[in-house]
């Protein structure tokens, strides 16, 4: 992958919020899966709180991104990754409504399918870290901003 020649960007805020949001949304997939195996309602309750908290952090991450852009803490925005995270957040919002159904229908089948889809998206995006700096799109084995 081509490397950009920018100097290291100043620290930005948004990855600090995207990362925990992603963790919570991925955890909801785990609790959904456990619900599907046990049918114990409390796992569904875990899922909806995880998704809700994940969405709150995702919203804050959006604000942080705006702040980073406004403060010029971000060089070029990685639009593809931005779109990916946005889709994951929108699917999770939809999933929050699905999880607000009662009993089995809160998770099965659409709830688990959506949290699995969100998990796949987040794992693919997260493989390259949680930043939306285009210049950080280097392989994780080479720290961002370094040149070989």
């Amino acid at each position, binding site marked *: 992958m081509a490397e950009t020649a920018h100097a290291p960007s100043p620290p930005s805020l948004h990855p600090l919020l995207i990362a925990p949001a992603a963790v919570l949304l991925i955890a909801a997939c785990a609790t959904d899966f456990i619900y599907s195996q046990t*049918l*114990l*309602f*409390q796992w*569904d*309750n875990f899922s*909806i*709180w995880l998704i*809700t908290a994940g969405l709150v952090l995702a919203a804050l991450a959006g604000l942080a991104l705006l702040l980073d852009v406004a403060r010029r803490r971000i060089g070029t925005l990685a639009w593809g990754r931005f779109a990916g995270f946005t889709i994951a957040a929108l*699917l999770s919002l*939809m999933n*929050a*409504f*699905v999880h*607000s*159904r*009662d*009993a*089995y*229908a*809160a998770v*099965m*089948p*659409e709830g*688990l*399918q*959506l949290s*699995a*889809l969100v998990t*796949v998206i987040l794992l693919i995006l997260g493989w390259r870290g949680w930043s939306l700096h285009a210049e950080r799109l280097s392989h994780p084995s080479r720290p961002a901003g370094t040149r070989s």
Partner: protein
Amino acid sequence: MNRILLGGGSALAALATLSACGQKVADPSTQYGANPVLPAPHEYLLPPMEVPKATGWGKDQTPVVPAGMQVRALATGFKHPRMVYALPNGDVLVVETNGPKAPIYRPKDYVEGKVKALAGSAAPGGNRITLLRDTKGEGAPELRTVFIDHLNSPFGVVLVGNSLYVAATNELLRFPYTPGETHIAEKGVHVTDLPAGVINHHWTKSLAASPDGSKLYVGVGSNSNITENGIAVEADRAAIWEVDPATGLKRQFAKGLRNPTGVAFEPQTGKLWAVVNERDEIGPNLVPDYLTSVKDGAFYGWPYSYFGQHIDVRVQPQRPDLVAKAIAPDYALSSHVAPLGMAFSQGTSLPAAYRSGVFVGEHGSWDRSPLNGYKVVYVPFRDGRPSGPPQDVVTGFVSPDGKSTMGRPVGVALDRTGALLIADDVGNVVWRVTSAPGATK
């Protein structure tokens, strides 16, 4: 991975078709009686709902009754009146009450609480019973006293001999009663525990006495809409209990009735009947609330099925053994009317058309658009069985545009003069319906 993507894709496709609006809602009249039309259940992202804003009654504003009748406020200014009961000497008891604070287990519980508060459901109850004395029987009580105070979310009331039974949300109480009494100061005697606990989702405990007074029947609602709080908390619930008032011993008389908010004995046959609130969130025309005779030992389906063997897939694991035993109720009232009170009409002084049936107070529900219920209906009976569709008796609780409710009917009763009394927990009024003066009877 492919499976996940496929699954996610099909979930999206399914959700896209669900959110398609403009679905035609069949008229409630297709769901009256023994064989209601039951559409296929739907799961929603957001169930179609309509929550009219609670405004209360303006000056000189009243509900509407058919020609030949008139309606007037018997008394106003109550704290969430939900039940009315006429004592033999003509005194009227008004149960002012509301449920205990509901716990928040999911974000939805918080949102739902806020939405229902708009419709007036969150107003604090008085936790007391007020007595009205109208010696002349003209609808103008000259005396109003606090009859019994400091109760825990009371609902059902019944007098047997000199014992007044009150169904608080957690226990059945007995008070000694002397005719003419206007205040009972002593604490009630504990007869038996009733299912309550931390969740106590459907908190009302309806109450009736057998015609000979030897047994009491208590309607106990489920602890959830459809087992979203787990099946364990449903033990002893969604049932009608038979209590021996002498010993406090009890047994489940009938099960699988989601929320039996009214119980009463049909005077001609002496059989027990109930009005029951069925489950929410699977469509505007599911599941019809109903009126039914209650058979000893019968199972009426909740939570596993409705109207016989119509399975509710939200309940897992299912119980095919119980579904096989489930019987259908006698008479559907149509969906989401929320019947909260019933009174058989024998002895009424209302016009002749209302003298052999049952009045049902339909509180109305958030879970339907367009609205249904929000009125008092009359179901005619012949030979102890319903003999025709429900007829509107008292309407006009909702504004013509459906955006606001001035009142919502709950408990109904006949007073000593045969007038129909209605507790209105949004208007905080007790209404009295009589034949219009000079009307041919």
